[in-house]
């Protein structure tokens, strides 16, 4: 129960942060990448604000704590190699982000805010996520189980 309430509160604070930061306004996202038009550097300040908090907390918690407050272990990404999937997937994501003006978090929270554009984008995004994951499940099923037992820790974010 406490984990569910905590996750809900985490998502809520995250969502309000996205809105205050301007991430839920596609015009501001496009403005950040519009170096040849009227540039809006706001997105860099959102990332900076998040990193100022997250970076020291991560180092402190992961290095000095035995385990998280409510969980037996930290579940952290373990991969270190740069592979083709990482680069190609990220490239495809960037095209969608520049085209639609939403990344996943802002899409979810903007649907809650009643944006019809976010709804169209968000449903398409979930179809993309679902299709990819179902395809992976089918492939793992044919291979006789998960391709890698450490798969959960291989997801970077």
């Amino acid at each position: 129960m406490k984990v569910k309430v905590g996750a809900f509160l985490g998502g809520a604070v995250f969502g309000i942060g996205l809105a205050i930061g301007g991430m839920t306004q596609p015009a501001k996202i496009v403005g950040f990448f519009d170096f040849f038009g009227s540039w809006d550097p706001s997105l860099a300040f959102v990332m900076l604000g998040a990193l100022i908090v997250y970076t020291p907390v991560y180092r402190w918690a992961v290095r000095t704590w035995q385990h998280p407050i409510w969980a037996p272990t930290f579940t952290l990404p373990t991969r270190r190699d740069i592979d083709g999937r990482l680069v190609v997937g990220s490239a495809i994501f960037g095209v969608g982000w520049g085209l639609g003006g939403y990344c996943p978090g802002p899409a979810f929270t903007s649907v809650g805010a009643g944006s019809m554009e976010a709804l169209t984008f968000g449903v398409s995004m979930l179809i993309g996520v679902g299709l990819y994951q179902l395809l992976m499940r089918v492939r793992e099923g044919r291979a006789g189980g998960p391709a890698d037992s450490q798969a959960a820790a291989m997801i970077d974010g």
Partner: protein
Amino acid sequence: MTVMESFTPIASTIGGVLIGIAAAGLLMFHGRIAGISGIAGGIFRQRQSGDTAWRVMFLVGLFAAGIAWSFFRPEDYAFGIERSTVALIIAGLAVGIGTQLGSGCTSGHGVCGIGRLSKRSTVATVTFMATAAITVFIVNEVLGGAV
């Protein structure tokens, strides 16, 4: 190049700090990375039992924040660009598939990954920032700003 009037350094920094607090909280309490695409993807492909509820609740929290915040500041959710339904569908599919293939998005790679000083996440962030910039250049400078 001109800096647009809507530049919001203070609000954006405050928003970023809130995102950082939420991501740090998920790490400290639940030991997980706050990557929205990873949280969503895990719902479709359960890796271990009992791993779904917190994911759903985090996304419900995001959704609820939109309902509550839009009540006070609906202007924070203005779309503000010209995109057809077809463009939005293509963009959504690209973000959905791309983030799963690349195992992360702006939050997972851009905030948590860079915060962990991960080389993979830094490469991913530079890559999606670059292709987003190229896409915006093509849309704005070649196609006239509307697709």
